[in-house]
């Protein structure tokens, strides 16, 4: 197990190195000098330009620039926003992160609470009406673009019925529509996954054995089937963590939700590169940590992985 952890940690570091190098490289591949890109469309004095050049070591060779850049980023110093002049990027991120996390937490909790029991039930009652209808729903849910469902919900619930606000945040009513959109998307993926994993486990010998020794159906399902079926589901949730977060980019834009996703798009639009690179950097770290934790949890639960 120890060897396994060390190997995975090293691999994680390699991945962080590769992606940070790529993020850093993007700034240099883009047309224009790095200073121009960092400034974007903002009007700044020569002093600011000199300060940026010095801070990020832009007058030194590229590998030194990378080290300076990485050092700044790892210390949490992401520079200053060029659009909201003088505001540190880290402060903007700290303002936006909690609302995004809350939004994701609620929608994810709802998705798990509905999709996992539905997936298990669909697999256990395979080819039943429930199985067909929930899988038709899930197939449709995967095909629906989330920003479009968002707009349709705004038209129905905010404009026609006037029950809910169409955007912004503040009260609990503001949460309902964006949470519904995000939950729909995740539910569709999760329900299909759970059903597939459960169907696979149902055919295993140990399930037949459990049945043969006379255990009640409920006991077999909960003790033997669900516990094993959830393993791959948990893994995929772990690996998809970053994907789940990236789903909020579009949804936050639709609902004018003041979170990280909207900040990301606004910064892209205003060419506020310092903010963009900070978000990409943090996302990378999150992806690597998420994958690492998932692997370790999986190896801890399932000894077969460690031995391989």
């Amino acid at each position, binding site marked *: 197990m120890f060897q396994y952890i060390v190997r995975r940690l090293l*691999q994680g570091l*390699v*991945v962080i190195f*590769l*992606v940070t190098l790529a993020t850093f490289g*993007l700034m240099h*591949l*883009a047309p224009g000098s790095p200073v121009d890109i960092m400034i974007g469309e903002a009007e700044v004095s020569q002093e600011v330009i000199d300060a940026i050049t010095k801070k990020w070591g832009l007058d030194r060779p590229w590998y030194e620039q990378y080290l300076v850049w990485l050092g700044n980023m790892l210390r949490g110093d992401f520079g200053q926003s060029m659009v909201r002049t003088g505001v540190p990027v880290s402060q903007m991120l700290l303002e936006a992160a909690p609302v995004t996390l809350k939004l994701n937490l609620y929608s994810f909790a709802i998705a798990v609470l509905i999709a996992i029991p539905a997936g298990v039930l669909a697999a256990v009652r395979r080819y039943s009406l429930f199985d067909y209808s929930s899988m038709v729903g899930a*197939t*449709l849910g*995967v*095909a*629906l*673009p989330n*920003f*479009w469902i968002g*707009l*349709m919900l*705004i*038209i129905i619930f905010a*404009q026609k019925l006037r029950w809910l606000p*169409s955007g912004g945040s503040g009260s609990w009513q503001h949460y309902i529509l964006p949470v519904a959109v995000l939950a729909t998307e995740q539910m569709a993926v999760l329900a299909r996954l759970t059903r*597939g994993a459960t*169907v*696979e486990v149902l055919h295993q010998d140990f399930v037949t054995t459990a049945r043969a020794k006379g255990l009640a159906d409920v006991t077999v399902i909960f003790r033997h089937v669900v516990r094993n079926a959830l393993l791959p589901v948990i893994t995929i949730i772990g*690996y998809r963590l*970053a*994907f789940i*977060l*990236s789903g909020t*980019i*579009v949804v936050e*834009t*639709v609902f004018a939700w003041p979170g990280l996703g909207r900040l*990301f*798009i606004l910064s*892209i*639009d205003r*060419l506020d590169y310092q903010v*963009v690179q900070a*978000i*990409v950097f943090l*996302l*990378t770290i999150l*992806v*690597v940590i998420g*994958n690492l934790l998932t692997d370790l949890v999986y190896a801890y639960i399932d000894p077969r992985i460690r031995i391989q």
Partner: protein
Amino acid sequence: MAEVRRSAVATERISGLTGFERERRSEFSRAWRRFKRYRPGLAGLAFIGVLVVFALVPSLFAPYDPIAQDTAMRGAPPSWAHPFGFDHVGRDILSRIIWGSRIAMLVGLGATAIAVTIGVTIGATAGFFGGWVDSILSRFVDTLLAFPTLVLLIVLAAIIGPSLLTVIVVIGTTTWASYARVVRADVLSLREREFVLAARASGASQARVIFRHILPNAMGPVIVLATLGIGGIIILESALSFLGLGVQPPTPSWGAMISDGRAFIRHYPQIAIAPGVMITLTVLAFNLFGDGLRDALDPRQRE
């Protein structure tokens, strides 16, 4: 698949000589027979057929010019002559939907072609040569698979500058990792098989072994994955265009049409409806077609 076909032909030749004539069936017709059993897959294929026709000759089906503006009709609701109504600058929405299928197909097929080419090349290289080449390429593939594609697309599109070509290239170069992973695993097991040994023994060059013997046998899963991937790519394209980082106006892209609908949602809420339905149906069609293909071409992956 090529190997299987060759041996089937040989058997038929022999059985023909001995008098046990059996109905000849190509690999294609056998796959088709399996595919036909899955009705939703057929429906998907039919819808894709219609889209392809729309994409090839949109002018035959679109009743009006997709970019001609009739300012007097701005935001006019549906009528018999204009079943989906007009958009915010007075363009016929039905005509824009039909022309939009060309953009969807161009992006879906173009980006997939790029992704498959890169993915198969990288996967085959990693699987065939193994060792440190495999280690490095596999790390790269894992990283790309773990990283949320939409974030990468947004950054790249913003840096390169949004256009139709940018969208195709950028999506193609960020979505190849799943092909590489599948091809690598297949090549890894295929290179140990007897027919590869036989080819080597009869003096085939390395390139011939890879391209004639190994890759054709790894293509089934790739075709299935590519079909299932097109739906996702169409959603990515429409999300990018919705954010203003994809296909630029006045080109009719479904995602950009939804973006127009969002800007004018208060006054003309009907603008966003039709393009969203079209995206959903198209993605659904490719997903169902892909499910059917998986059953027909790649029986190992059936649930």
